[in-house]
């Protein structure tokens, strides 16, 4: 399956955004993602949900998603409307979790300096390009190795394994 380009506005975050910031542990005992979504990023930035209404492509710095392995973190971001995350680097568990649930997590070394909050962005995974349409600047996305690309193309690990049956 081809991955369509994702077009949207940018929500800008910094370095070392941790999974406790994305969804505090005290809510994890409730299983429903819809209820968790109410609390997305509440410790980190109470205005986050407002910002997310307009801006659905997260652009961040280093080590995005560090800390706890909770898959609830990418799940609530996805459920809250995030379409893709472009960061200079990801914490490895968060990266795998995002890909496994079909949320594009893409590394771009110059992400932070190339986008501001509210800029229009076009993310083309097939061409490995992130374009700032507001500024007319295009930066490279780091290549995705296999099986990462295939899992993402399938729409996540559940669909990948259902189709393939095994590794």
């Amino acid at each position, binding site marked *: 399956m081809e991955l369509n380009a994702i077009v949207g506005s940018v929500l800008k975050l910094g370095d070392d955004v941790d999974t*406790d910031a994305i969804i505090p*542990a*005290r809510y994890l005992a409730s299983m429903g993602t819809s209820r968790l979504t109410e609390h997305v990023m509440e410790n980190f930035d109470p205005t986050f949900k407002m910002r997310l209404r307009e801006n659905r492509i997260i652009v961040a710095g280093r080590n995005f998603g560090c800390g*706890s*392995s909770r898959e609830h973190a990418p799940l609530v971001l996805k459920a809250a409307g995030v379409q893709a995350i472009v960061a200079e680097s990801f914490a490895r*568990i968060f990266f795998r979790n995002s890909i496994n649930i079909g949320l594009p997590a893409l590394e771009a070394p110059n992400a932070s300096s190339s986008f501001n909050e509210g800029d229009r962005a076009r993310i083309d995974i097939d061409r490995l390009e992130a374009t700032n349409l507001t500024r007319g600047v295009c930066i490279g996305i780091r290549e995705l190795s296999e099986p990462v690309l295939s899992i993402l193309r399938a729409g996540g690990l559940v669909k990948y394994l259902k189709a393939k049956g095994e*590794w």
Partner: protein
Amino acid sequence: MTLSEKILAKSSSRASVSPGEIVTCDIDLLMLHEITGPLAVQVFEEIGFKKVWRSEKIAVIFDHNIPASDVNSAEQMKAMRSFVQKQAIERFYDVGRGGIAHQILVQEGLAKPGSIVVGADSHTCTAGAVGAFAVGVGSTEAAAILGTGRMWFKVPSTVRIEVMGEVKEPITSKDIVLEVIGRIGASGALYKAVEFSGEAISKMSIGARMTLTNMAVEMGAKTGLIDPDEVTCEYFRSLNESIEVLTSDRDAAYERTLSLNSLEIEPKIAAPFTVDKVMDVKDVEGERIDQAFLGSCTNGRLEDLRIATRILEGRKTHRRVRLLVNPASMKIYKQAVQEGLIEKLIDSGAAVCCPTCGPCLGMSQGVLAANEVCISTSNRNFVGRMGDRSSKVYLASSATVAASALAGEITDPRRFWN
């Protein structure tokens, strides 16, 4: 090859591997707990799996929010118990029968040298203390392993941390690892394996080593490891478990080596709100605290309870401070009772509670109110980690936490050491 490379090669049936290669490995042990486990079970069923690949290779351990603090939490555990029963999983550690998962995996000999251990928890890397390749994953990945017994890995390059000298109390392995994180940074070892070696490590107990590997993930590392040695072999002999010893080759290729001398290391502390904001305890002495927490997968072992008791014995904690002590497992708890440590801790004013992760992640048994300050032996000090978003967490050794509980403010443990 390094130890990581050897384990990944063996588990993917290859003669050798090198950093950057993608390999699919057979998993020797999968750990689930009651918070990430239910989602893994849900996804397992969604994929269409009916039976787990090998029930004897799965450990289910309740630790995050035990005993259940509310109805939702109780329901999660109930759902996991039913999965355990349906799948005939014998390695099940319910409330009162185990303790913190990362402690149980090593304590019960489930994580073996040279094996691949995967856990649905980021601090699974703790098991690298006995020479396992141990990594944390999310719930969907865990579900795939439940069904297939396999997982893909990108072979990491290895960073070697060489610690010379000898660690002398009240300095502990916690001070060493905080120093390392301060130097490497919170993302300095991203995607890499971190191997601890050197004279100081060879003299450490398995418990002290677990504190080092536990915090590898706080530098971004995929895992932390220590070559099995005589201490490791003796440990498994005491458990009556046979092991296969794999170690890094003398000519293994490391991405870089960081050397430090433990004799030059002062008591260390990580200030809010990142784990790499590391400084000497003496630089923040005098900061008032409301709570002191001794426990967690980082520092809830006998070594920790002993050093804290040595400082607290015959003294009273500051009246403004509550000291929480959660031994990392029921076995440690019992040993601490037998050694007389618990009585002395209670006499000093400590609230000794059951093994759980609760306080460390603000779930139960010690959540912080607005603007409160806690000094903790745990491993994370992010915004709101232990409670309200305005609360603050300082990370330090068991000795520093005990000394600070006495003084009511952050205190160098050497002030109470004789």
